[in-house]
């Protein structure tokens, strides 16, 4: 490694999972220069998945979720101070306290925040929460422990569903309002959404689909909400779980290709500037990044997944201290998981990148199944419900662009179901020309190569 890459000043903006893993990797890769990590929360890096699960159930304190460090990254931690701007010419990160930090190479890992309720006055009512940070989780848990009569959850995505699950497990009445036709439909499509809806109702969730919340009511304290179907919900806690907003506003003047969908970067995690020219010294990783993925027809993906934050941060850190020929692409197949209503749901690939779905193993009735998603005749995703041990097999099929539907022969498969794929009922990705298929090969990260097969 040339000395100029091993030394110098690296600044990481964002002190959560991606920021920490990048810092560790930089040291593992032999970076000996100065390293600064900036985070707007006052806490050292912590893990978010337990916040909507064990923490809400009271099985784990909100402040007990610190991320274990693989090694001391020997960094200067600037915690509790927000980055407010970036000067790419002067190579400085501007901070909310008026100071600035100079860098030679920069990693943007500012992630996302919870999308706030649109009406600020209503959002300010006592009893209205979002759930993203450990402070959020601590406050919400306290309120759940006080035994509210009813909780209203707005949004039936993964976070909203997990919150509803935790409420039911604590014996709290809960209403979940979802704008779409069913919970999880945006992430998993229609078939598994039906399973999720049935499950929520079986667990006593008052599930309202196809409705929006038009107003939050209360006088200082939240007391209920009006729904678009004219009904009214009386509740004393409201959790707004309407997805996330990417933290890119601080980059508005930086001249980068940054916007509400994230910071665009190449497969090597280098940020694009506003003209689409790749930068040399600004890298992006984690939820804030938008990157092209060859398995999904080079569409720009932005992922809010734990696993993606880790692998992308590792690739970004490696590339920050490696000369060009040694740089690696971030080609990891997206993986995420959720636990709710006694189910363990795991996904590999991109289920929304699909036009059809089959149940390849298990069944909806057993609540144990593998759903395989296909797009134009090849496998693009698989979701397991209580059958996570099979995930690896389907990951292999996704990586090799195996034909969809998968062949018969699964020991616990239902041949009749597998023979009749049904529409996956996720919004069809925008029309694309018939391009090449791409397969990932190799077992080690540094041996991952793309093999482009010309279209038939």
């Amino acid at each position: 490694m040339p000395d100029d890459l091993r030394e110098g000043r690296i600044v990481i903006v964002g002190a959560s999972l991606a920021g920490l893993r990048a810092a560790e990797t930089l040291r593992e890769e032999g970076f000996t220069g100065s390293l600064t990590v900036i985070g707007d929360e006052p806490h050292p890096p912590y893990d978010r998945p337990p916040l909507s699960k064990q923490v809400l159930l009271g099985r784990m304190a909100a402040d007990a979720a610190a991320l274990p460090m693989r090694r001391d990254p020997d960094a200067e931690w600037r915690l509790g101070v927000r980055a407010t701007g970036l000067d790419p010419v002067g190579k400085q990160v501007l901070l909310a306290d008026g100071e600035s930090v100079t860098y030679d190479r920069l990693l943007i890992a500012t992630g996302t925040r919870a999308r706030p309720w649109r009406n600020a006055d209503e959002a300010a009512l006592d009893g209205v929460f979002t759930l993203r940070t450990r402070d959020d989780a601590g406050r919400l848990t306290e309120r759940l422990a006080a035994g509210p009569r009813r909780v209203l959850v707005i949004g039936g995505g993964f976070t909203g569903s997990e919150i509803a699950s935790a409420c039911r497990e604590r014996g709290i009445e809960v209403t979940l309002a979802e704008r779409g036709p069913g919970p999880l439909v945006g992430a998993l499509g229609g078939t598994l959404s039906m399973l999720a809806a049935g499950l929520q109702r079986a667990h006593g969730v008052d599930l309202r689909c196809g409705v929006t919340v038009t107003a939050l009511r209360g006088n200082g304290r939240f007391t209920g909400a009006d729904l678009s179907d004219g009904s009214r919900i009386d509740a004393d806690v409201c959790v707004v779980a309407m997805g996330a907003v990417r933290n890119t506003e601080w980059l508005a003047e930086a001249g980068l290709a940054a916007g509400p969908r994230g910071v665009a970067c190449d497969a090597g995690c280098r940020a694009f500037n506003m003209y689409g020219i790749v930068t040399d010294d600004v890298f992006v990783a984690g939820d804030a990044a938008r990157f092209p993925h060859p398995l999904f027809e080079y569409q720009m993906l932005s992922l809010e997944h734990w696993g993606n934050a880790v692998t992308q941060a590792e690739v970004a850190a490696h590339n920050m201290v490696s000369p060009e020929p040694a740089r690696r692409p971030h080609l990891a197949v997206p993986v995420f998981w959720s636990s709710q209503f006694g189910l363990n749901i795991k996904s590999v690939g991109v289920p929304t990148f699909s036009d059809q779905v089959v149940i390849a193993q298990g069944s909806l009735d057993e609540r144990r199944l593998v759903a395989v998603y296909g797009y134009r005749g090849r496998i693009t995703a698989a979701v397991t419900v209580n059958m996570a041990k099979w995930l690896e097999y389907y990951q292999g099929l996704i990586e090799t662009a195996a034909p969809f539907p998968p062949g018969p022969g699964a020991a616990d498969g239902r041949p009749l179901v597998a023979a009749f794929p049904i529409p996956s009922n996720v919004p069809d990705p925008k029309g694309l020309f018939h391009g090449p298929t791409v397969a990932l090969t190799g077992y080690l990260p540094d041996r991952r190569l793309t093999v482009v097969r010309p279209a038939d």
Partner: protein
Amino acid sequence: MAIDTLLERINDYANRPDPYPLYAELREAGVARQTDGSYLIGAYHDIMALLHDPRISADRRNLAAPYRGLPQEEEQISLIVLDDPEHHRLRSLAMRPFGPPHSPGRLDAMRDEIAQIAEELIEAFDGRARIDIVDDFAYPLPVSVICRLLGVPREDEPVFREWSATIIDSADIKPGADPTERRRVGGRARVEMGRYLVDLAEQRRGHPRDDMLSAFVNEPDPAGLLTREELAATAVLLLIAGHETTVNLITNGVLTLLRHPGQLERLRREPELLPNAVEELLRYEPPVHMRQRTPLANIDVAGTTVPKGVPLVLMLASGNRDPNRFRDPERFDPTRPDNQHLGFGSGIHLCYGGPLARIEAQIALAALIPRLGTTTLVQDPPPYRRSAMLRGPRHLPIEL
């Protein structure tokens, strides 16, 4: 020699002390079709992929007719040779009194007892110049532990020892041989052993003690109850698997450490390395060398089509020495990082008793290592047990 006789050569008792050159030959070949129609797989990544492939069945009834043998009159089928969803249901029920989520603290609570059993066995070494690691330590230790855990009287060991040996022999992977007669003899032993264990369990119905047989018959949730046949098959499996494999792990461990005195000395100085050393033993000298499966469809393995219904033999011990997965695989390295070995298999049939085997081996070696200061092997290689699948020394005499 021809690659299509490799399984025969692996089974040849003369190769028991060192089958590893044969495994290297197998990895070189990729996929090896045998003259009897079975297929051997020896590369780590191929084995791993097959263990996670839903088209691979553990149920021998899916073998094509020529490999299946004749149907048996009374056949006891345990979860280890069943596919999901039956396998999942039985394994979940068997797990209730053994591990998480229903019994998370069960094994940890046994640590002191296991250590005490180990100490008692070691105390009996006093005054003796020569002992047999197998008969004096590595066999009685896991037998005592599994008896205690299941609730089988320890003094009944001579009773079940013979059944166990017969069943192990009948389950061995032997090329070419017609399995009918072996399966008949093994099946009879299973039925007898199952009856014995169900009788023991029935005595505890309504009078539960702190053991797994009691838990199985006194389960309050009707959905959590095993049928009589399922209980027999599960109890037989747990009793046999609970000791026949761990004896190999402990014995192979002692043998390997005595062959690597530098590493033995290091573990004496740094006992905190022991958990990692046990993982390395599971890679380097695993107790179970191979498992047999059946493809339910024609499947592609490393460019070869393996036909539906043939016996597919996964050489776990070969995958453990695959240089494409492990750096310097022929080296025994108790500090080896990233050691995701195949010692307990992988996928849905991942060893049920693995957590117990780990604890037993760690405690057994921790207790034994301080006593191995000036020990020498009387015989190297030692005499081995017959089985190539459950490979380990029959005796391991050492001079203290």
